[in-house]
């Protein structure tokens, strides 16, 4: 006899539904936290996109003065910082949060309140960073903040303080999430789910968390040193005081290179989920995919100075980093061939997620090709600081990460929201995005090799850059429009979309075994797993299909209590940084002390509040 969730809500430990804003502020449910990440990330993606459109409008014609040089510097700095830290990373976090517990057959992450804390700190950091526009002091030293342009002497305003402190806040969010997901994947797998049976998205996300845990501390130190220079007048990166600007570059890129693998590995994972389902064939070379992912992460710590080929490191360093960079193409190539092997001979289902997944493969390969061109140090001397590099990283970050994240959105939307997105509009989105993307970024290979420099607000007429730049701007407008199509799809489907069954795509993994959207406790009973592609295996045992799962009462299932301490602790963190910005004010030290007190007070209450009902 099916009973309604609400009948048993009070008695069973399922919390009577908190409503409205309070429910969201106090949530510790990984699915809600995932949606918070996704919604916020999408808004920041649009803001970053707007910054890009203004850049493209400025570059549409030579000697343009649509924006000033100073504002242009803010635009490209914020575009890069926003897209990396406020769009791609939190969009990946949306999928980590919503789906890692479901994919491993768990009820939640290892530390639900720490999970909520990570989100609120992320949001605080994102708002802190963007609030700089209100003071006309948006970061303007590039997303990589090279010293000693970033010093107080050459960046006297608050711009680079916002940048350094904003990134520091975001780093805290990422580190907390890194610990959480690392423990979750290792410790909370369903019985029978050995590591070598985990879905590939879980593997890639797990490796990503390890990269975060090992690389973020390094940028934390770099940012601390920069802030101490700027706030307290030390000379870590000030040449006149003995400081070495190269130290900044080394510290930054030892973080920065693993960071780009943090941006792409989850995308690899998503593609490895989608291709098998839409080819009706298991992933080709599962073990090779696992090991190549591990190898990419490991090697990723050994290539950082390929961002520094033009800094005069000498022939030995240049050669070593060239070779290491070429090497890393190998495990990446293994993945591409395995994806092709997955689709080969499969029964291809051309649905929207598959369009974006196939688009990913093509675009990412192109990005990889320009990447391996960069790996040769002498060739890179021509390419570096030109639009050729801009072309490369947009092919891997947009053509790669964004295409894959979009594929993931269409794939997992029915599970998250309980209705299908419109296929017709999805295909329009795809074609506009593919065409707009290539029109925008392909010509950049050409103008880059012809010498158009990066990060310069205009170019003179007569150098041959005009027509391609105009084409790129048109492409960018088409690209922007494609996302309007997506928004229309989302709004239309939320109102009148087809209700989604539990398993609309004939999926291979456990999330498709529960209703769409899932109930708060995920699984009525924790499944036992006997192999890879656990759901296909279960369907085979049941004659090919499983019955549509019913919603149950969840009586007797213990879930963590909602809590507002993660929110308050996050507030404490960001208030500390705001107070640091005012440390020279009359009661500056008092503000800092008060913020620290709020943080400690929140942590104490968090630790001593009962985690479960």
């Amino acid at each position, binding site marked *: 006899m099916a009973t309604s969730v609400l009948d048993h809500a009070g008695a069973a430990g399922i919390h009577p539904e908190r409503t409205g804003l309070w429910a969201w502020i106090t949530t510790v449910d990984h699915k809600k936290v995932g949606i918070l990440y996704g919604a916020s990330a999408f808004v920041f993606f649009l803001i970053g996109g707007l910054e890009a459109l203004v850049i493209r409008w400025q570059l549409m014609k030579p000697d343009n003065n649509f924006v000033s040089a100073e504002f242009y510097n803010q635009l490209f700095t914020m575009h890069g910082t926003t897209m990396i830290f406020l769009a791609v990373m939190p969009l990946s976090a949306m999928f980590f949060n919503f789906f890692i517990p479901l994919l491993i057959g768990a009820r939640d992450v*290892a*530390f639900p309140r720490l999970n909520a804390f990570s989100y609120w700190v992320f949001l605080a950091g994102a708002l802190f960073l963007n609030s700089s526009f209100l003071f006309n002091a948006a970061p303007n030293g590039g997303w990589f903040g090279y010293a000693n342009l970033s010093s107080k002497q050459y960046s006297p305003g608050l711009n680079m303080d916002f940048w350094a402190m904003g990134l520091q806040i975001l780093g805290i969010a990422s*580190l907390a999430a*890194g*610990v*959480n997901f*690392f*423990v979750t994947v*290792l*410790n*909370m*797998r369903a019985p029978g*789910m050995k590591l070598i049976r985990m879905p590939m998205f879980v593997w890639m996300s797990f490796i990503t968390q390890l990269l975060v*845990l*090992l*690389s*973020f*501390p*390094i940028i*934390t*130190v*770099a940012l*601390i*040193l920069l802030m*101490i220079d700027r706030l*307290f*007048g*030390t*000379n*870590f990166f000030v040449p006149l*005081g*003995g*400081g*070495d600007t190269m*130290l900044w570059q080394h*510290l930054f890129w030892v973080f920065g290179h693993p960071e780009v693998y943090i941006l792409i590995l989850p995308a690899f994972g998503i593609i490895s989920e989608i291709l098998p389902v839409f080819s009706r064939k298991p992933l080709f070379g599962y073990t090779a995919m696992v090991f190549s992912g591990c190898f990419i992460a490991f090697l990723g710590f050994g290539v950082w100075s390929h961002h520094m080929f033009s800094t005069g490191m000498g022939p030995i360093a240049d050669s070593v980093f060239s070779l290491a960079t070429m090497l890393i193409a190998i495990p990446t190539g293994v993945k591409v061939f395995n994806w092709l092997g997955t689709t080969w001979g499969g029964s291809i289902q051309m649905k929207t997620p598959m369009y974006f997944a196939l688009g990913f493969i093509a675009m990412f390969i192109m990005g990889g090709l320009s990447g391996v061109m960069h790996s040769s140090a002498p060739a890179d001397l021509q390419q570096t600081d030109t639009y050729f590099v801009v072309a490369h990283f947009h092919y891997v970050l947009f053509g790669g990460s964004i295409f894959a994240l979009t594929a993931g959105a269409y794939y997992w939307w029915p599970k998250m929201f309980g209705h299908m997105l419109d296929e017709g509009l999805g295909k329009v989105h795809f074609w506009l995005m593919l065409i707009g993307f290539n029109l925008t970024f392909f010509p950049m290979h050409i103008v880059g090799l012809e010498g158009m420099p990066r990060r310069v607000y205009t170019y003179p007429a007569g150098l041959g850059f005009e027509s391609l730049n105009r084409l790129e701007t048109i492409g960018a407008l088409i690209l922007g429009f494609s996302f309007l199509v997506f928004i229309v799809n989302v709004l239309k489907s939320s109102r009148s979309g087809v209700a989604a069954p539990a398993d609309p795509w004939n999926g291979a993994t456990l999330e498709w075994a529960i209703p769409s959207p899932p109930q708060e406790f995920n699984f009525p009973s*924790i499944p036992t797993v006997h192999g890879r592609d656990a759901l296909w295996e279960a369907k085979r045992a049941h004659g090919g299909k499983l019955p549509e799962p019913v919603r149950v009462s969840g009586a007797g299932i*213990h879930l963590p209590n909602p809590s507002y301490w993660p929110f308050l602790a996050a507030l404490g963190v960001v208030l500390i940084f705001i107070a640091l910005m005012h440390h020279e004010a009359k009661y500056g030290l008092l503000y800092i002390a008060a913020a620290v007190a709020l943080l400690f007070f929140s942590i*104490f209450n968090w630790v001593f509040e*009962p*985690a*479960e009902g």
Partner: protein
Amino acid sequence: MDAQTLHPATSTGIPNRKLAIWTFIGSECLFFASLISVYVVYRGKSLVGPYPSEIFEIPLVTAGTALLLFSSLFVVLALNGCEQGNRKKFLGWLAMTILCGFFFIGMQVYEFTHFYHEGLTMQKNLFGASFFTLTGFHGTHVAIGVIWLLTVFFEGVRGRVPPAKALNFEIAALYWHFVDVVWIVIFPVVYLMN
């Protein structure tokens, strides 16, 4: 109510919170490795003095190091007492651990003040900048550890850390050991290798 005892077994057999503190410690190793690297990279590069050999008081710092080292032994004894349900052993050795932590911080405060009077500030030269940053962050970690251990102590006094909840103390102890190990690297690299 301890959530850990209510939960089913973990896939690795290690409790979630223990695995978490080890993970966090692993990450923090990279943090201190970076700070120590900056100190090493800038060693000998200061444009003006005071220089390390002129200003270090090795005997004092050695005493502080010994205190910190012994405190790790004391916290093991305390944890042992906690796990056995031996209240005197648990709280006695924990109090000793906390005292050692206090004295170590006291040593550092004295050292920093002394250096300041000798004219070494963060701004003076690269030695000042990198030394105070590295040891300052380490000292902050010690201070957080002392607060954490004090919390466990007061919870213990109230009888809220029985053997069944020894894991909570064990996690604090692991953090304390990490803080000690970092100092075991800093002491030779900064003070002895000159």
